[in-house]
């Protein structure tokens, strides 16, 4: 190797080393981040409450399907039309004359192993230290990979921000010591929220004291939203009739939405 080339390589090495050192010592809010600028900056909204593990219990024997939670969530989080962070589907179980109604309140399960987080190519969705899974709406580029990866269909594109959106357990409220809006508005007390790390909290007591289950446990995502009294037939139901909203649009002569239930 000639001397010129060797000197050039030496100089190049020095420049690269200097650049790497500068980048390593730069402020955490630097433009390039291998993760996400908010997390690097240790923004409290991104870190959460480090010693906590937030979870929710749904006591289905107390849910009356009033949709107060749905309305409260919409108002609290300014959720646009036709999209929902939480909702309560209503089912009819059994055959006449032995029929009963069932409600299944649903929201993001804030999984311990969230599949939405692992597939995100921009690091926009991540789990905080307290287990709350959130989306950074400034970083998300709207590829929809997380929407498809979620085994619970609890993500949607927000028509206002044009990026992925979902329930945050009302992170802005719990960071202030308040309860999520849906929990506070639940008339039957069916939604119980608290710290799963604290053995004395009501959620811990309920999860350990009575048989509880999670939605679709086979997905392996370890949801942190637990259900008491969940009917087995409500899970894994292959066939179903079209949903009322889609039928109503058809009846009213409105153009079909991009995705509808099959007639």
């Amino acid at each position, binding site marked *: 190797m000639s001397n010129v080339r060797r000197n050039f390589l030496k100089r190049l090495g020095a420049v690269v080393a200097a650049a790497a050192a500068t980048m390593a010592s730069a402020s955490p809010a630097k433009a*390039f*981040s*291998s*993760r*996400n*600028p908010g997390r690097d900056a240790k923004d409290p909204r991104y870190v959460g409450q480090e010693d906590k593990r937030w979870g929710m219990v749904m006591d289905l024997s107390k849910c009356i399907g009033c949709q107060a939670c749905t309305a409260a969530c919409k108002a609290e989080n300014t959720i646009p039309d036709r*999209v929902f962070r939480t*909702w309560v*589907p*209503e*089912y*009819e179980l*059994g*055959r006449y004359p032995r029929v009963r*109604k069932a409600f299944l309140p649903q929201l993001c399960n804030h999984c311990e192993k969230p599949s939405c987080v*692992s*597939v*995100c*190519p*921009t*690091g926009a969705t991540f789990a905080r230290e307290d287990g709350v899974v959130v989306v950074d709406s400034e*970083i*998300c*580029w*709207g*590829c*929809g*990979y997380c*929407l*498809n*990866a*979620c*085994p619970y*269909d609890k993500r*949607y*594109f927000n028509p206002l921000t*044009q990026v992925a959106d979902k329930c945050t357990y009302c992170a802005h409220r719990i960071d202030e010591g308040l309860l999520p809006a849906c929990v506070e508005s639940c008339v039957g007390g069916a939604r119980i929220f608290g710290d799963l790390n604290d053995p004395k909290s009501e959620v811990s007591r309920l999860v350990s004291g009575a048989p509880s289950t999670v*939605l*679709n446990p086979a*997905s*392996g995502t370890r949801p942190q939203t637990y259900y008491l009294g969940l009917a087995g*037939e*409500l899970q*894994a*139901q*292959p*066939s*179903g*009739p079209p*949903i*009322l*909203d*889609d039928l109503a649009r058809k009846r009213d002569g409105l153009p*079909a*939405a*991009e*995705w*509808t*239930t*099959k007639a």
Partner: protein
Amino acid sequence: MDMMQTVHTLTSITPARPWGLDIPNYFWFTGSSAAAFIVSSFAHVFGMKKFKPIAGFSLLVAFVLLVAAPLNLIDDLRQPGRMINFFLYGWENFGTSPMKWGVLLLATYPVLILAEALVLYRPFLVRRLQEANRGVTRAFYKGLTLGRTDLSEEALHKDERLGFILGAVGIPLALCVHGYTGYILGVVHSSPLWHTPLMPILFLASAMVSGTGLLLVILPVAQRFFTTTGRIDKEVMTALARLLGWSIIIDLVVRFFWLTFAVAFNSNERYRLMDFFGYHFHEILWVEYVLCLLIPMIIAFSRLGRRLPWQFAIGFVAAVGVWLFRWNTVIGGQTIGKTTAGLLSYHPHLFGAGSIGAVMANWLLFVALLCAVLLVFPWDEEMDRHYGKELES
């Protein structure tokens, strides 16, 4: 009593799904590109003489397909202006998000094909440079030759070596570029239709079908109407038809494994898959399998497979069939309910992002780009040289 029949959803919300028309179209483009590249490598890397005359042509087709393909992805993004975010953030998910590394493949692969095309066509480009009168044309061709205008025996030999190396590196890269698209779907465990390690192989096998089919459609058109001789190479068409037949066999074998593992044995997912395949039974069986795979395969190996109109027809039908397979996989996988009962249906919009119009525009762009690239690169001269040599010998 069948418990499954006793649940009725009275009210709920229809979940919207993120991936529309753009995505099956994107998968079709990248797949066909990989296959066209491999056909070109048959000559450049494996030294298969019968594919020599069309090696350059299919390399250019592979390039254009891959330039047009990612535009579908950009159209599908809800915030396309934030593309830079992809490169700045989220590297912690490199191992778990195939999209993260896939886009890197997608960015390097077309550069490699272009480099290979520039190397292989260099002697022709140098000649055009020498013939050029105007300064702009000269500068253009000088750029394309990358400043190497030496036409000596030694330089030509170096081109050949470089072409071989680029082609050899390109084969695994081509397989990765399309394999990753199957990988993207395969890792999504929430969709029973997608969640199989066979998905990348399934995508590659069907890509060989669509890529060969596409060549069977464009090659005769290009040779008949845009070369000086206007002669369609029947031998190479027959070779391509045979290749199509073999690709269909491989595709069918992989699909057999996929469907039997997914549906025939007792797994939790099979109920949803049986619901899905039951609903689409006739269209999948008669259109996707019989019309678009079995019949072209039989024709490819029969005497009809040596006749141009049939070669053209089976190429077209097989390529369309693979598009339908991409559609049934991407859209179909999303129609299966996760926490809602039953299947969903998709109604693509006519205009706007992810619409029928957007995909049509992408196809028009593909045709325009193909015309432009075929104008710039002297693929016809290269073909003439091969056929001229054949005549001499």
